[in-house]
């Protein structure tokens, strides 16, 4: 019985026009957004606060322990929304420019590239530069570098080959993971924890003043990527099609690769590598709403944020009983089976 509901839902959606599906998705997402913000704010030790308790803690002028905890949670809610949006939109962009369903920040090795940058920054403290600056800067540089290497390898022999791209991503990703593992192994114990934290992801360590750097980069980056929504649609048909329609494919692709790498680096610099968001979220909406990036990109931004918050809620709820459950583990545990379900049921619909 449980398995029938999702297919009924998707089947029912097929009867609606794309415009009304978009409207429906926006309404459902808005509701989910409110619910997920509440849930993530409500975690209080082993128990959950009621909506009115959360409201009072935020706006009621209450300065007690509850208010302190809720306001700390607010930090992770804000960063979670932006990081989720950054990962999901970048994933959508990469799938479109590479015309490949598997392209995502995680599978192309970008997240692990950023992890390596962060690990190096943590391990070999750069003189005169505080870790708070060195870590995101190195994460960004390594992120770009990884993208460049993967792309260059996949370009060998002329055209960007889908298969080579995936293989290059997987190969570079495992190579980098191996280096990160090695660095973790040789790291002194107080730094080892920081590196491990990185590879699993966590929304707990970011401070408000760090967000002043992260949030503008993500917002501006997403806005810049959105200027290319229509060009991306044309590029999804193929590079030659896009050129015939007047799109400067090389310039647009380079622009989007640089911007998406920047956005991903900023997003993961402080919260670590969180997998599956960039892969799964755009696919879900493409399945429901079709491939038009003018809908997929903005809606994925919200979907990614909501998904991260729900996963963070689960990870914190679980952690309050079992000690710890990193958010990166939750996103993968939920994301992977759901992706397999989509793959099996609606492959032809998505177009691959």
């Amino acid at each position: 019985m449980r398995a029938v509901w999702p297919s009924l839902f998707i089947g029912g959606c097929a009867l609606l026009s794309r415009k009304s599906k978009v409207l429906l998705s926006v309404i459902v997402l808005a509701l989910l957004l409110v619910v997920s913000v509440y849930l993530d704010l409500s975690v209080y030790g082993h128990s959950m606060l009621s909506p009115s308790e959360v409201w009072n803690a935020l706006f009621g002028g209450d300065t007690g322990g509850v208010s302190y905890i809720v306001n700390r949670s607010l930090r992770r809610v804000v960063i979670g929304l932006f990081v989720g949006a950054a990962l999901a939109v970048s994933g959508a962009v990469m799938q479109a420019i590479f015309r490949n369903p598997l392209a995502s920040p995680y599978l192309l090795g970008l997240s692990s590239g950023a992890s390596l940058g962060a690990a190096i920054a943590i391990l070999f403290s750069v003189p005169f530069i505080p870790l708070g600056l060195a870590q995101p800067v190195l994460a960004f540089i390594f992120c770009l570098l990884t993208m460049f290497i993967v792309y260059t390898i996949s370009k060998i022999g002329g055209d960007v080959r889908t298969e080579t791209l995936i293989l290059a991503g997987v190969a570079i990703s495992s190579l980098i993971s191996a280096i990160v593992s090695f660095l973790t192994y040789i790291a002194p114990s107080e730094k080892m924890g920081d590196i491990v934290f990185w590879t699993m992801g966590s929304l707990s360590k970011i401070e408000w003043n760090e967000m002043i750097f992260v949030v503008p980069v993500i917002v501006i980056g997403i806005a810049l990527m959105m200027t290319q929504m229509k060009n991306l649609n044309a590029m999804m048909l193929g590079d030659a099609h896009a050129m015939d329609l007047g799109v400067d494919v090389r310039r647009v692709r380079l622009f989007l690769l640089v911007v998406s790498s920047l956005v991903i680096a900023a997003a993961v610099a402080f919260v670590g590598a969180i997998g599956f968001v960039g892969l799964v979220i755009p696919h879900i909406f493409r399945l429901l709403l079709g491939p038009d990036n003018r809908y997929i990109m903005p809606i994925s931004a919200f979907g990614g944020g909501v998904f991260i918050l729900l996963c963070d809620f689960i990870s914190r709820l679980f952690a309050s009983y079992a000690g710890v459950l990193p958010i990166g583990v939750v996103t993968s545990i939920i994301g992977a089976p759901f992706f397999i379900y989509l793959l099996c049921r609606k492959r032809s619909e998505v177009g691959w």
Partner: protein
Amino acid sequence: MVSVLDIDSLKFSYAGHDVFEDISLSVGRGEVIGILGPNGCGKTTLLKNLNRNLKPHGGCVMVESDDIADMTKKEIAQKVAVVPQTNEIRFAFTAREIVAMGRLPFQESFRGESSDDLRIIDDAMVRTDVMKFADRHINTMSGGERQRVIIARAIAQTPQILLMDEPTLHLDISMQFEVLDLVHRLAKEKSITVVIVSHDLPMVVRYCDRVVLMHDKRIYAMGKPRDVLTPENMRVVFNIDAELEDDPRTGNPTVRLYGSCGIGGQ
């Protein structure tokens, strides 16, 4: 006839080898011209030079007296539309969404379709008879249906010039006639200049006002099919034994293929 497309001593090399050279040609408004030649003679490369998907290594291409080297990609796409050879599309765009992309060269980043755009899109879909599958996904269509959607997209580009690369390839024979009938009609009704690149002799003879025969990297002959496709020229260029004769039923020339001239082209 006013010429819309002027090609002057165009030359293109790839990896140090000339693909073609000294191509000069003027095409008039509303004219349907066929560029014929055996596989691998550089026809497709020539076509890609005409909208600067590839940059020539010599000579120039003028569209309505403007050198396309001085135009942006967007400006070129406002005047030149292309129906490419491979139309396989993996994403589930609907036919209407694909046709609407024809308006891309005329739009700002964040603008939706204007009422003018919508009217042009509808008109293109009606003319190509794709309205009936407007909401179907392109990746579930047959080759002929897909071809028509792409042609509709090209029409929605309101081009002066339409470039078609092997439009009959992979199509059923009846669909080949349907597609070329459609293109011929559009050329005459909307005064669009059509350049068809093909190795499909019978179709080119049937539908093209003028034929350009490519051989050995150059234009070998050019003119009305009757004058260009002589038995001698067809032997040299295609290595076939063939002749043109007037079809008793239509009165138009038709090609009669007898066979190959054999290995080595005797």
